[in-house]
């Protein structure tokens, strides 16, 4: 007997209801899978709730399995939108924390700066006011470098000028003066008020820390050469500066911080080496006034050149502008 079209139709007519029933069941099975997949696209804390909610509603469509499948498809398509709505909660919390941190650092730093000036800082400024003005001016201009050159270099700036201010005029006068220079440079560079205030506070805190380390090392080991205390101050300055910035980055973009961490530590490690290399020139600058300033800037200038020419990727953290 030959297999003809009549036989095909007959067998098809017998099998079709069975296949249809199977396909019908498969639709519901697939819909459940899609709903679970959709819930998997949400932030982890919300997954269970939405999976249960959607499975409960899917169960109402049982018996209309093609509709259930279409419904599940729509849920899957819209899951990223639900996720965005839910993630904004977390983003709001981070934004609040970040703003609180900026306010706290600004208030603590600027408050400390005022207190230092009131407790002996103003008198210290009177020792060599002209040199202090030169260094403050240069430090302010250094803050403008990213705007003048239109090249952002992340946390790189001429910190040796600020370090010289703290070492030359003491923590009480040097830290507020360096912070003032930073803020002045940034105001001229038209940075927003919150950034200017944060960087001012940040500078007072890390330079006051560096000044304190310098004084402590020098007093505890009067026989050791001064550059050792300057190196200790440079390390303290870099570490505190980096810590204050790192906390802010972590609050502003928690996801990006892990990616950025390794690269930033390399840059900040190099920065610390450059500051350490500049340490012997600090007493020279302070003794001979401004004549040795180019020597002071040499290590950091070399570092900037290295970063620009050899590893440009290191110098341009994508998620931030000049200093933060």
């Amino acid at each position: 007997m030959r297999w003809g079209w009549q036989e095909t139709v007959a067998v098809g007519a017998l099998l079709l209801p069975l296949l249809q029933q199977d396909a019908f069941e498969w639709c519901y099975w697939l819909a459940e899978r899609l709903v679970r997949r959709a819930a998997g696209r949400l932030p982890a804390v919300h997954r269970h709730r939405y999976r249960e909610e959607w499975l409960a509603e899917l169960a109402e469509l049982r018996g209309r399995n093609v509709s259930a499948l279409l419904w599940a498809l729509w849920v899957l398509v819209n899951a990223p939108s639900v996720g965005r709505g839910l993630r904004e909660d977390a983003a709001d919390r981070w934004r609040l924390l970040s703003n609180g941190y900026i306010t706290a650092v600004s208030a603590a730093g600027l408050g400390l700066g005022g207190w230092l000036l009131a407790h002996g800082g103003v008198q210290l400024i009177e020792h060599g006011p002209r040199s202090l003005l030169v260094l403050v001016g240069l430090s302010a201009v250094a803050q403008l470098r990213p705007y003048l050159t239109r090249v952002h270099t992340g946390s790189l700036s001429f910190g040796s000028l600020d370090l010289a201010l703290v070492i030359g005029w003491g923590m009480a006068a040097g830290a507020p003066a360096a912070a003032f220079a930073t803020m002045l440079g940034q105001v001229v560079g038209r940075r927003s008020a919150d950034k200017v205030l944060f960087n001012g506070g940040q500078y007072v805190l890390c330079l006051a820390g560096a000044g304190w380390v310098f004084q402590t090392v020098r007093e505890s080991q009067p026989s050791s050469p001064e550059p050792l205390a300057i190196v200790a101050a440079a390390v303290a300055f870099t570490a505190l500066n980096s810590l204050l910035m790192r906390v802010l980055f972590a609050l502003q973009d928690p996801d990006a911080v892990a990616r950025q961490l390794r690269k930033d530590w390399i840059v900040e490690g190099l920065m610390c080496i450059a500051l350490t290399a500049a340490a012997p020139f600090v007493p020279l600058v302070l003794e001979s006034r401004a004549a040795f300033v180019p020597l002071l800037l040499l290590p950091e200038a070399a570092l900037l050149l290295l970063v620009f020419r050899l590893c440009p990727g290191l110098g341009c953290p994508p998620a931030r502008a000049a200093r933060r």
Partner: protein
Amino acid sequence: MAAPRMTLQTQRVLAAMLENPLGQHYGLELSRRLVLPTGSIYPILARLERAGWVSSRWEEIDPVATGRRPRRYYHLTGTGAEQARRELDQTVRSITPRWGVAGSGEVPV
């Protein structure tokens, strides 16, 4: 908390909920009533809940006895109902021609 984005669909969801401000609603029921694309109701409810206009709770049933999973019910909060009325009134006013008949207060659905 910031107000949710007032899309036409969001307004329709709010209007449906305001018809029975004390009522309990669930996603599938709302999307059936409003003939909205089914999945699109959940982003709206998530945003309204985030803004504090809507609050949700699990249905209190015994899944074994009833033979089904508990639903997630949504209802307007006091502030949410007030804000929703204000937003919808504002929308009605903004789309009513100045020279025409004043808005009847109906929600533009």
